[in-house]
């Protein structure tokens, strides 16, 4: 660690960043806070409403349902993507020409615009014209994600696994390649089994990058909007309407600015608090 000198003039160096981010973060946030405590009937006429919208949102069945869907979705994809990503990273070659090829191909899904991901999976999974849809139906399952909630969930989860597992792979791979060869050699000489090598050498070294992987996947999956919106439009019914989709429906669809703003703040707060809890829990774990 570099020992830093105290220098208040460093503020001049961070000033451009602060101005730009503040412009983008504080003004909109103030707008949202403003809306969240007022009622409007158009024509820029506003009435102060206090915490009415917050109470309404927190007590609404609709919000509870979206939150529950969101939590289940995030839980499911974390349970799949983290172990899968680690398993793939473990079986990747350590050096040689194939490493570059693997990394480039695996990073590909990360660089596709999110609505293209949605559209791609839509035409891939449609039961009549999609390869996946045909394959599943060909195996004797009745599969149509535009009609069946379970199929819609399955497709959305599969799409997210397709889209984001590579991020976990890349992070885990980077963590693994920071382990010096001597550790593996020592373990071989000590007669360690493959499981012991994983448990006592690889997993401890992966802890830090996995913390980041879990945090990122938690945050990003909690904010997911575009991909499921393009894939299923939140349907069938409301079965894949996650928090962001619901929020946009209320704000831009119904133009209920007050409830939408209140929901935004609650939503943002949930992410902040949960990220903080994750982070402190994992950091405390690390210190022990």
């Amino acid at each position: 660690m570099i020992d830093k000198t105290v220098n208040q003039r460093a503020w001049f160096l961070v000033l451009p960043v602060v101005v730009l981010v503040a412009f983008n973060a504080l003004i909109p946030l103030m707008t949202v806070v403003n809306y969240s405590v007022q009622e409007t009937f158009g024509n820029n006429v506003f009435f102060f409403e206090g915490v009415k919208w917050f109470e309404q949102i927190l007590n609404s069945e609709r919000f509870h349902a979206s939150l529950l869907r969101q939590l289940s979705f995030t839980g499911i994809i974390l349970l799949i993507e983290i172990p899968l990503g680690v398993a793939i990273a473990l079986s990747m070659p350590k050096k040689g020409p194939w490493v570059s090829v693997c990394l480039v191909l695996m990073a590909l899904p990360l660089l596709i615009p999110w609505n293209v991901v949605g559209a791609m999976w839509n035409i891939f999974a449609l039961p009549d014209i999609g390869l996946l849809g045909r394959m599943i139906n060909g195996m004797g399952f009745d599969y149509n994600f535009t009609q069946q909630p379970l199929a819609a969930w399955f497709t959305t989860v599969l799409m997210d696994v397709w889209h984001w597992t590579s991020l976990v792979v890349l992070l885990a791979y980077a963590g693994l390649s920071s382990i010096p060869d001597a550790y593996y050699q020592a373990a071989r000489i000590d007669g360690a089994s493959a499981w012991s090598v994983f448990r006592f050498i690889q997993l401890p070294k992966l802890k830090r990058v996995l913390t980041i992987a879990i945090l990122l996947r938690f945050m990003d999956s909690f904010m997911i909007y575009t991909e499921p919106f393009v894939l299923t439009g939140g349907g069938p019914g409301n079965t894949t309407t996650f928090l962001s989709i619901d929020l946009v429906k209320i704000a831009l669809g119904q133009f209920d600015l007050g409830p939408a703003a209140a929901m935004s703040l609650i939503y943002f707060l949930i992410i902040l608090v949960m990220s903080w809890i994750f982070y402190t829990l994992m950091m405390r774990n690390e210190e022990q």
Partner: protein
Amino acid sequence: MKMPKWLVPTLYILFLLLPIYWLVSMSFKTTNEILGTFSLWPQEFTLANYITIFTDPTWYNGYFNSLTYVGMNTLLSVSVALPAAYAFSRYRFLGDKHLFFWLLTNRMAPPAVFALPFFQLYSAVGLFDTPIAVALAHCLFNIPLAVWILEGFMSGVPKELDETAYVDGYSFGRFFIRIFIPTIAAGIGVVMFFCFMFSWVELLLAKTLTSVAAKPIAATMTRTASTAGYELGLLAAAGTLTIIPGAFVIWFVRNHIAKGFALGRV
């Protein structure tokens, strides 16, 4: 039974490529073939979809719009993040830790929350429907990210480098541009990659802040799907074209990606 080790990554990559293959293959099919018959590869190979895109200005302009705001955002984010990351990695100052944390919280802000206020903000300042609006809006999550990654790279550069340069009579500005920036060139490459990536893939804000003149390519696609009925071939061709810049960029930074990730910061 022992599975060969390469089997897992190979299967995984196949799984990744399958939907992409389907998209690309569909882009070479006629609408009739897509809707009428089911074929694993194009039976009547056609370039018509691509010709439409390259000849219709609403299509190819979308492409330019996307690249414009992504490029602007990448340059802007990196150039303001450089001095800030330097400050965080070298100095202690009033409120530095809180400021750093506050910057990171913006990475956690759901774009959906900001969609409407952004629309109002950028309309109010007269930037609505310009690439500048999108480029500025994407700074919300890209600047914190850039500062975070760059700070990691800079902390790896020994402080003696700065001190030697100052002793040799370099001014801060000259030192920063002539010596420091070349030293962390790899880090800057990694950061540009991530800024490009997140600006390129984000669409909710980009779509909200544009209507006609600055519409991104990916948003043009959505319109096709809804208004012109099901022109799936065209949609697939446009989608295929959006994959290319990303693939191109990955290829350039392939040797640095793992290193960027190794710092554990993204």
